[in-house]
């Protein structure tokens, strides 16, 4: 399985959840109902960032010029997204939690769009199909996908 495709698969799940949260946030009446769902999303998005950092970005960095902004910028956005989720977790009132949640969703969406339009197409050119499949297998192992049945892809 191709690492780029499975990471896009994860983006797909997150986009649907961002949209859902944006719809329900205005009607939420308890801070826990912002922080709880945002905490679940944070767990998935932050591990998604870590998988990109450790697997995909580490693989393409040697192919890029030293100091290339492509990966550096994405890593910085990962840190900003983590900070954004932390802001939701630390909020003391509903309004602050809601505002922080809207902010981190917008940031994450912008980041995913950048990856999809700039970095992933570049990675598809830089990494051979076999290398992308090897990284995909490492992703599956880390995510616990197909763990019980061995790799058939």
């Amino acid at each position, binding site marked *: 399985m191709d690492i*780029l495709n*499975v990471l896009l698969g994860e983006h797909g799940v997150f986009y649907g959840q961002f949209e859902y949260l944006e719809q329900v946030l205005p009607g939420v009446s308890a801070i826990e109902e912002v922080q709880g769902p945002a905490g679940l*999303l944070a767990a998935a998005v932050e*591990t998604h960032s870590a998988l990109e950092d450790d697997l995909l970005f580490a693989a393409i960095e040697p192919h890029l010029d030293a100091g290339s902004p492509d990966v550096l910028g994405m890593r910085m956005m990962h840190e900003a997204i983590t900070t954004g989720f932390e802001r939701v977790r630390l909020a003391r009132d509903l309004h602050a939690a809601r505002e922080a949640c809207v902010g981190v969703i917008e940031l994450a969406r912008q980041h995913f769009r950048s990856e999809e339009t700039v970095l992933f197409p570049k990675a598809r050119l830089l990494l051979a199909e076999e290398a*992308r499949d090897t990284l995909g297998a490492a992703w599956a192992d880390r995510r616990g996908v197909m763990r019980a049945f061995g790799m058939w892809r």
Partner: protein
Amino acid sequence: MNIIDALLGEHGALYVEMDRLEQALQDAPAHARALAAIVGIAIDCHSRLEDELLFRVLARQSTEAEGIVRSMQRMHGDIADALAQIRALPGGPAARDLALNVTSLAREHFSAEEELCFPLADEVLPEAVLSRLGARWAERREIAAVRTR
């Protein structure tokens, strides 16, 4: 892009969210409905995409494929029913227990897809079909730019 890769990617994100949901439900059962809703919306959408894209095509391939798809769709129905029951509750222990049941059902279902359904689809559907379905998946999920490999 291959639709099976995309759907496996969705499983990967959902596994970690279900792990975290189970922890959160123990800590805050009063908010079980809100907690379950964010994961439930993603599971419902994932099931719909499988039904409308991959399963519809796969079921036409053979009697065996049709049987496996029916079994997967029954599981989708069971999960959707449990999620609907949670939405009808105000939260609390009953919603928490139903949400825990959903994560258990969904894990079992994802495993069945990974063991039976996806390998079968990979075997019987031509690469061009899987790529075409992947492009439709990307369109439905509003992924910005997708190239076939």
